[in-house]
């Protein structure tokens, strides 16, 4: 499209935004604009991109101003007015847009005319050494603020925090802590050193168990698997953030440095709408019964009034709503996309509609 329409004066901008699915290809959410710009540079280099790239701010101003969709597309006219928009980029539709707005090109570029490079994921130390944690139930990312100014070195390890729906709603539930190596720094866990450790500090009456932990001892000298933990939390005061401090030894893959690091985070038990969904990157939970899951999804979709693939919780029966609220990971009052795809029957089977009693036959 760029090749066809850039010569006709159309400008193309790829807007780099918050990660939609952290963990895919090992990438984790950046903490600073410099790190996000580094993602842009990696993507540009790997793809051999010719178009201009723009980068959203760390407060995700552009993503919010344009409707929060992960892969949306807009066409702007010369006066700066939006003339086309769609939630998902669609090259067919975009070409039709440009044909109607600018004119058709004589010989549209074909796939085989392009020499697209293939993406090589960032190389990291050994993987699948430390078993991944399978989360019990649905978890959603919460607002996690690294204390950037207190650290003299980059956050080679990045913490991702997710809470289950009980913790988010009632202040009592489970908290996931995932410590991920950031591939842009090309570092690994030094397993010859003391394993990484963390501790959580909270308000006086908040209960956390365990409030500290340590990564596993690994016989392999180095690996790049995340270190994951789940802790039980009972908050005394939601307004007081938790403080998580992590200690680890950071070693780069080129073995030019190895240094002890201590870094802290402030955790607010509030859903982070820009936190992305890492379920797509996780190993799939074993379905109890694929057929049962499929039937349950069909049952849920039967309440999709406008047939757009999104089921509003307000539209389903009470009993089903109670079940679906736990599956509404981003708490937007609807079940869609990944939430629907990862829906699993509750113990005892899928929710069933109430059976209407047949009127008793007249005596």
């Amino acid at each position, binding site marked *: 499209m*760029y090749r066809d*329409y850039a010569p006709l*004066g*159309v*400008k*193309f*901008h*790829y*807007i*780099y935004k918050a*990660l*939609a*699915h952290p963990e*895919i*290809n090992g990438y984790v959410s950046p903490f600073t*604009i410099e790190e996000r*710009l580094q993602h*842009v540079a*990696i993507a540009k280099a790997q*793809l051999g*991109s010719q178009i*201009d790239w*723009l*980068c959203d*701010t760390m407060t995700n101003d*552009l*993503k919010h*101003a*344009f*409707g929060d969709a*992960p*892969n949306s*597309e*807009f*066409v*702007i006219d010369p*006066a*700066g*007015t*939006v003339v*086309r*928009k769609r*939630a*998902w*980029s669609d*090259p*067919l539709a*975009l*070409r039709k847009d*440009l044909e109607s*707005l*600018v004119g058709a090109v004589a010989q549209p570029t*074909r*796939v085989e005319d392009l020499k*697209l490079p293939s993406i090589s994921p960032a190389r990291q130390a050994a993987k699948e050494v430390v078993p991944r944690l399978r989360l019990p139930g649905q978890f959603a990312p919460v607002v996690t603020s690294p204390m950037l100014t207190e650290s003299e070195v980059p956050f080679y390890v990045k913490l991702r925090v997710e809470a289950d729906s009980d913790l988010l709603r009632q202040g009592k539930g489970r908290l996931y802590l995932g410590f991920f190596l950031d591939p842009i720094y090309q570092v690994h866990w030094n397993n010859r050193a003391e394993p990484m450790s963390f501790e959580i500090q909270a308000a006086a009456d908040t209960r956390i168990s365990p409030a500290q932990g340590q990564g596993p001892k690994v016989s392999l000298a180095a690996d790049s698997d995340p270190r994951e933990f789940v802790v039980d939390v009972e908050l005394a005061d939601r307004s007081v953030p938790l403080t998580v401090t992590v200690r680890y030894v950071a070693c780069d893959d080129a073995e030019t440095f190895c240094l002890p690091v201590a870094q802290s985070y402030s955790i607010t038990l509030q859903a982070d709408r820009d936190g*992305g969904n890492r379920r797509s*990157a996780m190993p799939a939970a074993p379905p109890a019964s694929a057929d049962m899951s499929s039937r349950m999804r069909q049952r849920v979709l039967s309440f999709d009034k406008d047939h*757009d*693939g*999104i089921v509003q919780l307000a539209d389903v029966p009470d009993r089903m709503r109670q079940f679906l609220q736990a599956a509404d990971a981003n708490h937007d009052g609807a079940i869609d996309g990944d939430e629907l795809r990862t829906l699993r029957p509750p113990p005892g089977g899928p929710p069933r509609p109430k059976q209407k009693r047949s009127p008793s036959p007249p005596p």
Partner: protein
Amino acid sequence: MKCRCVAATVIWCLFLDAALAAQAPARPPMAGFEQKKPAVGEPLPEVRLFNAAGQEVNLSSLRGQYTVLVFGCLT
């Protein structure tokens, strides 16, 4: 659908022709996206952002020609 946001897919969205598009898996609609701003007919919002060199720019600087904006990320 798993790789809907992988950069390659996004770049392909900008480059590829109908043949590849026809092979792409159906994508789920976004809840209420059409109702969200900016609507068709509305001006670009005034939002700051950065170019690839890290210099701050404003969206209003994109006026003057037809412009295509595509959102995406590495994952």
